[in-house]
């Protein structure tokens, strides 16, 4: 029944659920991962730029403060002290008290000492040629003014106010103006530097804002794209599931309709009195019996699948003799195989170890595999069943593998990934009117995983297929570790395992 899913043509039929949806699903998965990766990279790169900008802006601000702002403050203090030097000198003119003269002279000298220190500090911190030139000029002009100031001060202290005023007007004012011009020039230089640094900070700030906005925009776009992609994936999945379920209902209805039609026809004939002979009655009874059993079998399979999916099924695990179960299944399906004109070639290694699982489940699984081989075995009419012991390097354990091979029509590569999906039936199979529910292989896979094993398929279109059931053996050290996934799968499938033999 599971093989009903397998596609018989290389391309999916138009209008079916395969092809674009599947491609879209893969694209969505990969594109989401890629989108996330690129978004992450973009955010990291832009974030690094933003951090660099912020650090640069911080440095510019520090430079502006320590360089220009503090220097402007120092120059302002310097200007004040120069004024204080001159002011104190001129204050002395306003009194004839020699004691006050001395006091003002002291104040003037203290102020000029501070100015000299300020000029020396400016020269020590000067970085450009222009700054050095201005600083040297200021020092020279200040020295010139101080010599005039000393003379003016001396004249005032001597009591020659007129002489002091004359000297101050002729020499003092001019020399002091030169000092003020020098200071103004220094201030202008600092202003220019501050303006330049402010401009740098402003530019960095604008750049940072743009980058942050870029990061936010990228993140927003990526988030929208991711949400859209995820929603699209979910919607596509839901549509696919709905379509599969519709197909399943149609398929089941069809599967039920055929035997029901036979039963109904036989019942009508009997009821209408058309069948009177005992032999005919027996024949009609046998037909009704056969069709009823088929219907029951179909219903059982659907219920079993439902039970495993809903975790409502219970299976008792025990140690199983694989060879005996294989023989039993071949015996059970012998009638169908013979009726279909097939013959089974059995190859079984001697003394196969035991596996642990549910005997009826294992039998159902093998039965599905053999029935599928009959359905899609093609004209060769040959089925190969092989049971053997192998060590799986991938899983690090020894396992029994039961392979069911046919030389039939095979499965397209594009279909291989989907043959185990529940309700999935290849459009090619549907097109060829091969009946089935789309549950057989899915059910077999669930049973295999419940027993700690798995089901694999290898196939080539036109050459046939091999379905292999892998079961961990009892007592293998590797299988102990591998038991957990099996137990997990069992739990997922609603199968409760026991350890009793």
């Amino acid at each position: 029944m599971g093989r009903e899913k397998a596609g018989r043509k290389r391309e999916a039929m138009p209008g079916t659920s395969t092809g674009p949806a599947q491609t879209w699903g893969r694209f969505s998965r990969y594109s989401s991962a890629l989108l996330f990766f690129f978004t992450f990279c973009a955010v990291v790169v832009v974030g690094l730029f933003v951090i660099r900008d912020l650090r640069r802006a911080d440095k510019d601000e520090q430079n502006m403060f320590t360089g220009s702002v503090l220097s402007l403050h120092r120059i302002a203090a310097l200007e004040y002290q120069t004024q204080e030097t001159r002011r104190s000198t001129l204050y002395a003119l306003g009194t004839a008290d020699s004691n006050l003269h001395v006091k003002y002279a002291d104040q003037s000298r203290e102020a000029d000492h501070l100015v000299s220190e300020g000029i020396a500090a400016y020269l020590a911190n000067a970085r450009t040629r222009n700054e050095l030139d201005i600083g040297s000029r200021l020092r020279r002009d200040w020295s010139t003014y101080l010599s005039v100031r000393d003379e003016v001060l001396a004249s005032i202290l001597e009591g020659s106010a007129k002489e002091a005023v004359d000297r101050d007007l002729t020499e003092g004012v001019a020399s002091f103006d030169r000092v003020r011009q020098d200071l103004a020039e220094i201030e202008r230089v600092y202003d220019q530097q501050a303006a330049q640094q402010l401009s740098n900070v402003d530019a960095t700030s604008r750049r940072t804002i743009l980058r942050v906005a870029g990061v936010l925009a990228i993140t927003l776009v990526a988030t929208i794209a991711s949400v859209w992609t995820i929603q699209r994936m979910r919607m596509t999945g839901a549509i696919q599931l709905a379509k599969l379920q519709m197909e399943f209902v149609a398929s089941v209805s069809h599967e039920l309709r055929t035997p029901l039609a036979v039963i109904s026809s036989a019942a009508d004939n009997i009821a209408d009195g058309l069948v009177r002979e005992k032999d005919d009655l027996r024949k009609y009874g046998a037909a009704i019996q056969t069709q009823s059993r088929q219907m029951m079998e179909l219903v059982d399979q659907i219920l079993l699948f439902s039970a495993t999916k809903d975790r409502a099924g219970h299976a008792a695990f025990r140690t199983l003799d694989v060879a005996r179960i294989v023989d039993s299944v071949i015996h059970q399906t012998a009638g169908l195989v013979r009726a279909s004109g097939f013959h089974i070639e059995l190859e079984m290694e001697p003394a196969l170890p035991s596996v642990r699982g549910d005997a009826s489940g294992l039998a159902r699984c093998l039965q599905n595999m053999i029935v599928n081989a009959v359905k899609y075995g093609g004209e060769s009419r040959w089925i190969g069943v092989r049971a053997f012991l192998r060590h799986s390097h991938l899983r690090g354990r020894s396992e029994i593998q039961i392979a069911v091979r046919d030389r039939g029509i095979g499965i397209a590569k594009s279909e291989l990934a989907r043959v185990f999906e529940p309700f999935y039936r290849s459009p090619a199979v549907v097109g060829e009117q091969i009946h089935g529910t789309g549950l057989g292989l899915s059910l077999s896979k669930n049973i295999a995983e419940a027993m700690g094993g798995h089901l694999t398929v290898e196939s080539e279109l036109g050459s046939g297929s091999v379905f292999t059931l892998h079961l961990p053996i009892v007592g293998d050290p590797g299988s102990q570790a591998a038991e957990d996934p099996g137990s997990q799968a069992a739990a997922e499938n609603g199968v409760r395992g026991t350890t009793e033999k």
Partner: protein
Amino acid sequence: MLRRAHVLFLFCAALLAGALLACSFGLAELSASEQAAAERNLAIVVNQSNPVNELTMAELRRVFLGERGHWPNGRRITLVMLEPGWPERAAVLTSIYHMDEAEFNNHFLHGLFTGEVFVSPKTLSTPEGVRKFIFNVPGAIGYLRASDVDKTVKVIHIDERLPGDKGYKLHVPPREGK
């Protein structure tokens, strides 16, 4: 032999230590006496830029009386006096002017009126003020207790003698407050 050398060495060391101790005591005593002398001597001080290093007592008297208007470098002479009540002023009036306060005042009033005196003295309230005044005025001359002198002013020789020299004539009573 060796023990004798040791004893000799220790003896010499003790002598040397004693000598050093005596010297230090002597120096300390000398320093104290010098300090006391500086306290008692009255120094005549001028601006550091003043080229004059020496005056005779007669020249000094002429300067203090206001009879001399300029220094050799052309700078106007500015006489600086402490306010009345200072022992330094009393000493100057006694030693240089040979006047009392009233005579001193009359001298300058009369001199300024007649033109015999070129400039009246500047009066300051403290020795520190005197020192600062002289520091600021290149042609200023004044007097200070030798202990009040610092590097901002220059002490000149009077009759070839500096305060503390033997035969120096300008003295002031020890300071007992103003």
